């Protein structure tokens, strides 16, 4: 039962990675691709980590896995912001299309 749930979570995580990868391949510009990759990887890694979490018995290891996920979440959100900023600096035309408070 636990194994089945684990597999379900891991496969759902992989599906998110797949969707993110397709997004990176298919979407037209840096901002859209960033959107695809950060969303998909955060959720994908979360599901993967939960799947693996169910296989562990040591609470300390579970905590470690959770912390790794949180660190990746924070790093990916920040990195995404910064890369988007860099991309906008190179494309002034895109910045002009943003709503006023996001410029």
């Amino acid at each position, binding site marked *: 039962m636990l194994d089945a749930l684990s597999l379900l979570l891991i496969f759902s995580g992989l599906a998110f990675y797949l969707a993110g990868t397709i997004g990176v391949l298919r979407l037209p510009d840096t901002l859209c691709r960033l959107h695809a990759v950060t969303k998909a990887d955060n959720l994908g890694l979360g599901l993967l980590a939960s799947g693996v979490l169910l296989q562990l018995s040591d609470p300390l290891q579970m905590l470690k896995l959770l912390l790794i996920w949180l660190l990746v979440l924070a790093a990916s959100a920040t990195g995404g*912001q*910064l890369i988007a900023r860099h991309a906008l600096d190179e494309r002034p035309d895109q910045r002009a299309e943003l709503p006023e408070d996001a410029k």
Partner: protein
Amino acid sequence: MTPGALLYLDLLMMGLMLVLAVGALYARSLRHAVILFIVFGLVVALVWARLRAPDIALAEAAIGSGLAGALLLAALRDRRRGAESAPRSPAWQVVAVGAVVAGLVLLLAWAFLDLQGERANGPLADTVRANLDVSGVSNPVTAVLLNFRAYDTLLELTVLLAALLGVMSLGPQRPPMDAAEPMAAGLIGWLIPLLIVAGSYLLWVGAHAPGGAFQAGALLAAAAVLADLGGRREFRLPGQTWLRLLAVAGCAVFTLVGLAALIGSGVLLQLPPDWAGSLILLIELFATASIASALFLVYLGGHPPSWNSREGHPDA
């Protein structure tokens, strides 16, 4: 997880690896090929993890997929306008390459199945275990990397330096970024200390569990890249001269320790058992600094200003 369930996971990863490899080779455009290559590296990292080699998995994800991928993307961006897609190969080449790949796959499958059997505890693994006491560390992987087969690791560090020289010769350094808006700047302020702590932990834990200089260096480099992207000058990242010196320091210290061992024991890189633990930590410490500097320099790109003035240089 039951062996049956794991078999499905293994089959899935094997299939994925093949599909991605073929996809990368025959992608419509170079950009697609590069992206598929990056994803391929991540799947290979998972495969290494399944083969119970988490160290190699981490290194593959960080360097094989992350760094190599970033380099390829940068090369793609900077390359002069040329043919958008690779020329098609003739049919006989496709068939020949396919046959070779099929042979390799069979060989790997045989090796994998063979390793599953009693030879997983073969003579080499036994030798490592029997000599773990004199290695100075309790993680067998670190013992092999930094003591029994220290040559390999020294050469890996040298290869990294060579790659860095290649990137440095590509063009001038990227201009520094402006300061980020308050929210991103605040997040960076949180993240950088976290990354430094996580990197130090990986360096320290390498003595008795998966971790080590390459993984720690990758995290420290990530912290430096974040600081630069966010324009956080107050972190006072070392300048190009210091970064270059640090990038060489790992190789230098490793070589010096190896030479000292040669004088002491008559064999290059043969660490004395009493000192091995401290020496390995010393080497790993400098290797971490070197790898972090090298990766950060790769991100910054750029050669020393003196190269610009050289006569006949493409940038001059």
